[in-house]
């Protein structure tokens, strides 16, 4: 008998919470809808809010509640409700409350334009236990709506944030570095810091993904045209000093070592999964390659987590360019190359994505890991080099 405090307060993500095995499923992402009431320049997901075909195919609240119940039974602690804009769903509150009553913490991703006083009060009374993450693009009506392309969206977003603040609901805002907004980053951070209820430091979307549903070449061309080059990305990261560059060096030193022929290097053992609005389970929301999708309508979460995804994780690369370059590259800790990116860009699981390769090389040059023009996969002692730079 110890006599010490009996109730331990622990972050649920803390390593060591589980004395035995980790739960079969620790975190679940649910994309409630692909529809959105904004039409952001850079979005890799959104369909029009009124897309009747998409709406008709979306799973009902009853089906989501059944999935959440199964997820909780598998040990899941955190569920992310996202979209599209999840608050477009008239049954959002029903799904949210079901998740919370199961003892799940909820990460809500929203553009805040549909937050009402009633919803803010609900989030106050039954808190999600995670800060609400709000995509709030632009510091003025002009810059915001140049991104969202929806008149009135700026005022609606600010109004929604106000409801969260008034009710003491914790939230964090996220910006995007786009042609209309890239000059506003400092003002955005200062504004966020002064918002009642805002927590943490705002994040910025900088490296934009192409459309994960594919088949929309015009949108992909538009998104590609918004992406910063490597040097621009490094300049943005460095705007407050060398901290990020030191982090890259440190991270690369700790994670050096080539992928070999593994393609799912990003999630070797993570007990997480994502489900699209139609009940199709995937490793992550971006990976929609048909070979990597499990239809929950004719299966179960348990089977997906214990059989389907572990089998998938064993997939090996076949693309000669991947094996020649990514397979031998020591920058895997910096590079965003992954099956989801290959899928969005090339419709495959393992084709190298030149854009992210270029970004990683620019980071490595800035961090002193590569000379300008040097290719990481040609460096024979890359891991040792990264470790040496980290030590020094």
């Amino acid at each position: 008998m110890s006599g010490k405090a009996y109730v331990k307060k622990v972050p649920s993500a803390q390593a060591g919470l589980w004395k035995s095995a980790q739960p079969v499923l620790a975190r679940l992402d649910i994309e409630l809808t692909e529809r959105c009431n904004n039409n952001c320049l850079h979005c890799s997901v959104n369909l029009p809010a009124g897309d009747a075909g998409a709406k008709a195919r979306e799973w009902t609240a009853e089906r989501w509640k059944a999935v959440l119940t199964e997820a909780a039974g598998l040990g899941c602690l955190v569920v992310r409700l996202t979209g599209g804009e999840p608050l477009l769903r008239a049954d959002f509150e029903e799904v949210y409350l079901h998740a919370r009553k199961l003892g799940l913490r909820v990460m809500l991703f929203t553009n805040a334009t549909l937050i009402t006083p009633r919803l803010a009060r609900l989030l106050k009374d039954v808190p999600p236990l995670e800060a609400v993450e709000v995509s709030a693009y632009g510091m003025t009506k002009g810059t915001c709506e140049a991104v969202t392309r929806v008149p009135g969206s700026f005022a609606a977003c600010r109004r929604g944030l106000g409801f969260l603040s008034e009710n003491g609901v914790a939230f964090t805002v996220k910006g995007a570095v786009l042609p209309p907004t890239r000059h506003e980053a400092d003002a955005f951070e200062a504004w966020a810091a002064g918002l009642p209820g805002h927590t943490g430091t705002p994040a910025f979307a900088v490296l934009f993904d192409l459309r994960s549903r594919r088949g929309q070449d015009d949108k992909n061309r538009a998104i590609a045209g918004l992406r910063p080059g490597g040097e621009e990305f490094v300049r943005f990261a460095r705007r407050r000093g060398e901290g990020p560059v030191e982090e890259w060096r440190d991270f690369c030193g700790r994670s050096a070592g080539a992928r070999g022929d593994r393609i799912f290097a990003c999630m070797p053992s993570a007990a997480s999964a994502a489900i699209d609005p139609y009940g199709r389970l995937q490793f992550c929301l971006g990976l929609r390659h048909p070979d990597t999708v499990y239809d929950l309508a004719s299966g179960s979460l348990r089977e997906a987590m214990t059989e389907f995804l572990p089998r998938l994780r064993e997939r090996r690369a076949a693309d000669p360019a991947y094996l020649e370059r990514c397979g031998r590259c020591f920058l895997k800790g910096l590079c965003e190359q992954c099956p989801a990116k290959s899928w969005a860009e090339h419709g495959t699981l393992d084709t190298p994505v030149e854009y992210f390769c270029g970004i990683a090389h620019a980071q490595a040059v800035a961090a002193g890991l590569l000379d300008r023009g040097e290719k990481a996969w040609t460096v024979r002692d890359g891991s040792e080099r990264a470790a040496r730079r980290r030590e020094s």
Partner: protein
Amino acid sequence: MMRKIDLSRTYAPSDDVVIREIEGEIVIVPLTSGIGDLEDECFTFDEWGRAIWSKLDGSRPLGTVVQELLDDYDAPAELLKGEVIGLLQELYERRMIVEKG
């Protein structure tokens, strides 16, 4: 709120929390506001806390729970009683239990 825990009273988990058992751990997740500090927190017990908590179902007075624990464990009565009251005091202050009668 300070409140004297009474062995003649009955206590049960509050509706303001959700109790889960995951991989052998009891995890208490706040449901309503004011229990956790909002973000990234849940609560769990040490071994004794788990043993005591498992008997708090609102069906019998706390004194009976103490007696059952004395039957189950080889521990000095006064020490065990103190531990039970200490735990319940903490749970009550955290609004994780309620007095049922």
